């Protein structure tokens, strides 16, 4: 119950963080006219509402408003407060006008409000964690399910189809690669890709001739999992990042997902291997239910119980990886404000404890509650 409240709070901060910490006021009266700058931004971009020229200068805090209602934290994460440059402690005397504008978590070296950046950190950590784990989950469940359901002995193919499949896959990857090389602008490649897909479909529906062999799907997928697992996560992530010319959030998410799917896949595979031999699945096979339907409706729901647990732990791992990246200053686009990047500043300014304590506390609380949740799920499953 307490966990639910905590996670809702985290989610709230992640979603509405930009409305809580923003230098634009919620409501203001300026030169005799009323504005709602916080909400009006998209409308201004569309040209539906006109703002006075003073609003365009991003000098929101020092405008002579007639009436103003500010947000809870009247700073954006990027706002530079020139009056409080150079690491003002939360307890030190701060050069701000009024109680409301105080920097409750201090400022960093260039005068940015730590609290505002801290709130922004929730969005970053959560979006990286949730998105990468959902992608990893889909990939992991698919690959693990494939390996577990068919094993080494249940995916039967005629010999010629088995060989053709490998040949076809190589060709398929080749066409996709060529498509990327030409930015998808070449008509001939699209036609070739279409022809290739057509050939695949035709061969798939060709009658069974001759001897059938079992394709060792489990072995192949386990090999991939073993290879990826052999490289420690952070090393792997850092080794992949230089391939990308200007790494951004999206790339980091994809890469973390690519590293994290193996754990989920291993678990799903083990569960599928266990469940596929149970009697009710054999009965389903005898009833002539399609393989996909058996996997989706009869095996997966029973396997998911323990998969949710790994989701919780992988989520924690992804958030930690994101923090590492921010802390090391590698991979994220320059100027990204995250907990890790805030903590990194402490390395140059040892005395600025507030830059380490608050972001670290947030990471710790999220990790702790995720572990707690995993433990709870575990006791529920067993």
């Amino acid at each position, binding site marked *: 119950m307490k966990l639910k409240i905590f996670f809702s709070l985290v989610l709230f901060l992640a979603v509405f963080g930009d409305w809580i910490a923003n230098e634009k006021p919620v409501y203001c009266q300026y030169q005799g006219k009323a504005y709602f700058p916080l909400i009006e931004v998209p409308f201004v971009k569309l040209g539906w509402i006109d703002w006075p020229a003073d609003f365009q200068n991003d000098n929101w805090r020092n405008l002579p408003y007639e009436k103003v209602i500010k947000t809870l934290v009247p700073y954006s994460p990027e706002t530079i407060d020139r009056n409080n440059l150079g690491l003002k402690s939360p307890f030190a005397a701060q050069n701000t006008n009024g109680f409301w504008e105080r920097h409750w978590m201090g400022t960093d070296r260039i005068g940015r409000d730590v609290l505002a950046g801290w709130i922004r950190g929730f969005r970053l950590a959560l979006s990286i964690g949730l998105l990468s784990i959902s992608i990893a989950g889909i990939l992991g469940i698919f690959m693990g399910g494939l390996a577990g359901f068919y094993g080494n002995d249940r995916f039967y193919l005629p010999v010629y189809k088995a060989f053709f499949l490998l040949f076809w896959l190589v060709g398929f990857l080749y066409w996709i690669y060529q498509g990327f090389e030409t930015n998808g602008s070449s008509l001939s490649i699209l036609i070739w890709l279409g022809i290739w897909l057509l050939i695949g479909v035709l061969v798939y529906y060709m009658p069974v001739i001759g001897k059938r062999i079992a394709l060792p799907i489990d072995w192949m997928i386990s090999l991939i999992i073993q290879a990826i697992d052999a490289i420690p996560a*952070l090393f792997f992530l850092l080794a992949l990042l230089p*391939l990308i010319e200007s790494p951004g959030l999206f790339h980091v998410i994809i890469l973390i997902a690519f590293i994290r799917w193996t754990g989920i896949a291993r678990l799903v595979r083990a569960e599928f291997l266990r469940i596929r031999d149970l009697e009710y699945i054999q009965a389903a096979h005898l009833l002539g239910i399609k393989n996909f339907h058996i996997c989706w409706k009869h095996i997966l729901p029973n396997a998911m119980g323990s998969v949710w647990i790994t989701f919780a732990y992988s989520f924690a791992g992804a958030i930690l990886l994101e923090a590492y990246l921010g802390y090391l200053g590698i991979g994220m686009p320059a100027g990204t404000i995250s907990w890790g990047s805030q903590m990194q500043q402490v390395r140059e300014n040892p005395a600025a404890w507030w830059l380490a304590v608050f972001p670290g506390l947030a990471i710790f609380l999220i990790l702790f509650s995720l572990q707690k949740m995993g433990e709870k799920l575990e006791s529920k499953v067993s």
Partner: protein
Amino acid sequence: MLTYLLKRISTLFLSLWIISVCLFFLQKNASVDLVMLQNKARSNGSFYVHPLSAEKVYRAEAVRLNLDKPLFYFSLQPAMFPDTFYKVQYPEAIKIQKKLLLKTGDWALVQTYYQSLAAFYEKVEQSENSTLSIFWKQQLQEMANSSDLSAVKTACQVSEEMREPYIGEIRKIEDLVNRLSYQTPSFFAWLPSPRWNGPDNQFHSWFSKVTKGDVGTSSRDGRPVMDKLKEAIPWTLWVNGLAILLAYMIAMPLGILMAILPKRKWLNWINNILLALYALPAFWVGSLLLFQATLPEYGFSFFSISGWSNLQQKGGFLSQPIPFLLQLSLPVFCMAYGLAAYLTSYMQSTFSKVLNEPYLLFAKTKGISKARLYFIHALPNALLPQIVFVAGIIPALITGSVVIEVIFNVPGMGRLFIDSMLSQDWTTVYSFVLLVSVLTAAGLILSDILLVVTDPRIRLTRENKNE
């Protein structure tokens, strides 16, 4: 048993081979311009080469650096690519020629175009009119670095007196540009043409060197990467080894104690504390410790961030054990507490599970002493999964130690990795990844073998399943 081991080890080698193929291509992709770097180093950073005369410089260097070979055992290119495309060495030229080829599909024409540009450049180089030749050199640089043919055309269209001395070459280039811009690759030029390159390729020579322990030289300082690794590995082993040792020394007694003590409310609290310790990010604790506790005002002056080289010079643990251990204490503590917390709860659960086994209940009813019950009968059975567990967490430990090493400035693998990463020394970076993955894979397989050797039940079920 033996077949199981053989199978396991052969898949291990296969997966390591796959990893090394992937890392080789990653390294090739992320590679900085080695020739440029070396030439810059030789001429104190002021190395300049015109894109049209670069190819000669690069080819000469490529022979020495073993780059004038195909990449892999086989290649799969569109049919319009020539078999010898890998011989082009100048990175910019590779990019431009590839783009032009994909646009036009006619390799002969692309090459004639490039060669006529080069011929033009040579003529400009030989001529005496200095302002004109400088102008045309600049123009040619633009033309050589652009895959946009219309830009090349506009670069040619300057005033007549500028064009006059080289009118023949310019006419030729304009003609070629015209022909190129009307060309498109034919439908069948896109078909893949597989080619077998044989064992005389870059990957093969790299891999055979790697198996002999020579992973190449650092592209930053020219030192063999293996030497760098040899310096760094002991530190990482010390930190991780001591952390594991410490964690076990704390976790074993504590876990057993928690298992055998009667269940009380406060045990729940201890469990929560253990969970919190496990969730406490080590790099956070590390940075707080480093900056708050190493200041002399707080009375902790045994650790200094620059004390590592001092230790290195004096010969490490054997010559001065106390300062050595003190220096290592903070990173080891940061690595150990989370592990200890996890191991404690793990030990507690396995020990209480073992205590509920029928044979132990029987021993209890037989009336043997508690000490005998716990330490002779229960402990060996509970200890087994713990030992196996260590090998499994090695990857996570190494990941964690990267950040800890960076924080405490430990000259181990993690810090060297980050340093070479930041200085774009990809040879070192990918050699590191390869080495770490070999170590990790070995650890994982060791834990598997240990498990099979020590527990006959697992062996039987595995053999039954024919895995």
